[in-house]
């Protein structure tokens, strides 16, 4: 499976409070959450994001609160994959559990720039920056996580 889109790039320690501020957590509605995604660090994100776009960030992406609303807001805003140097562990787990693909790849997180067009092959873990022509090798998911993603989330995978 492949996805491709335009990159929205951020820095280190992007926390879940800026991904979706707590003042909007009085709802679990995916579209409403998406309408405030990244609001406190990038007010333009919701206007410029298109279906299939890719988010790239540096270290410790998604640190802070366990709110699943954060990966939900990112996924519902149309983002098809998040690439970072490292992810905070609860965010990593939540993303897999709701079926938002995320890949740790320090080289890609460093090399890819805002606005680049990027393609990701989930089967091989290969990330291609079509703007610069560079490729990067991300870690493909282990089998049990592939199973969760293929079944579109943990609960679907539990149903067998």
């Amino acid at each position, binding site marked *: 499976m492949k996805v491709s889109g335009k990159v929205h790039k951020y820095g280190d*320690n992007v*926390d879940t*409070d*800026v991904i979706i*501020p*707590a*003042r909007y*957590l*009085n*709802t*679990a509605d995916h579209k409403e959450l998406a309408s405030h995604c990244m609001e*406190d*660090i990038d007010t333009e994100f919701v206007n410029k994001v298109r279906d299939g776009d890719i988010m790239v960030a540096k*270290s*410790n992406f998604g*640190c*802070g*609160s*366990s*709110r*699943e*609303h954060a*990966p*939900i807001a990112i996924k519902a805003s149309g983002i098809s994959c998040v690439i970072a140097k*490292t992810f*905070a*562990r*609860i965010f990593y*787990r*939540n993303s897999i*559990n*709701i079926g938002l693909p995320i890949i740790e790849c320090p080289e890609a997180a460093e090399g890819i720039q805002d606005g680049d067009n990027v393609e990701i092959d989930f089967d091989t873990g290969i990330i291609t920056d079509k703007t610069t022509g560079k490729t990067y090798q991300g870690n493909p998911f282990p089998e*049990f996580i592939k199973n969760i993603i293929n079944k579109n*989330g*943990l*609960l*679907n995978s*539990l*149903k067998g």
Partner: protein
Amino acid sequence: MGMTMTQKVLAAHAGQECVKAGDLIMARLDMVLGNDITSPVAINEFDKAGFSGVFDKTKISMVMDHFAPNKDIKAATQCKQCRDFCNKYDVLNFYDVGDMGVEHALLPEKGLVKPGDCVIGADSHTCTYGALGAFSTGVGSTDMAAGMATGKAWFKVPAALKFNITGSLNKYVSGKDVILHIIGMIGVDGALYKSMEFMGDGLKNLTMEDRLCMANMAIEAGAKNGIFAVDDVTLEYVKERVTDEFTYYTADDDAEYEAVYDINLSDIKPTVSFPHLPENAKTFDEIGDVNIDQVVIGSCTNGRIEDMRAAAEILKGKKVAKGVRCIVIPATQKVYLQSMEEGLLKIFIDAGCAVSTPTCGPCLGGHMGILAKGERAVATTNRNFVGRMGHPESEVYLASPYVAAASAVTGKISQPSEIM
């Protein structure tokens, strides 16, 4: 090869003799927790998956604390959804306005978590219960839904960092200063995916409140969990609270640690974490005049009785500075009542503080003390991210109840020795 405390708890709950860092395991859960923000997402998933019941009605806790007492119609609707779910499935540990408290202060107080337990909670500060010698970690709502249905969760067994604690704390220094110092030292991702294991002969000089506060903020170093060796202080704390039997675990002598840090409590000074990351820890020789608009004393980090006593010790007979709003929030009904009986609430109110019923409220910028653009707060809470307590251009400074109370009196970030 030997196992750490965390690894032993996980091995026991996975039914395995031995686990090592990196192993993927399926573990049995002793408690599954959610609050009024994370539970509705879990309930939606639970219903969508078509589960017909919960795995054990005594091993699920739902606490209405974040936007409760309901701050608006949407918050009220979310609490109602939790209430209806708990009624439908006869979930016994449902805590609503009137008997609720901030979840991570409430569960240990009620004896719902115990040494050696394996606990997940849809709240990142679930790591608090490591103070009791439990493996306890924050997860998302989907994990909570699966946990409520199956009583199990998958984990990757974490590698460990060891914190060897020696010495004893100086006056007006608390567990909060210790953990802010540690996060300042290793960074907000210094313990990423790992467990933080606290042991050593200085542990006996840390109260249960100190330990709960320190374990609470393990997540702010990126840790999967924090865990304290069980000792007489732990056993004394659980004796009057926990009725079930429990087994606790000690680390093997040959357990493997990725790093060992020696922390001498006697060296720790009052510490403040500057915006916008908990790792921006400074001591007072690095802090100039920083004027403030608000002080918040409370939360799952520092809303326990010892924290209330610390704040009252500083505020007794003094007044909150003109132009500063000081909000005190005892974390549970029991702490609230005890604060009243001990005369602490009178001290707070005489000093000009607002005292509130338990709620997470301002800590996450929900309600009960939101900051305007450009305002600054000293808070005993756990996060100082951009916009955490209100406007994206407001600022939160993390500190102990001693420092927060002293700052309320002077109107700028201050240590207790400046006014005592």
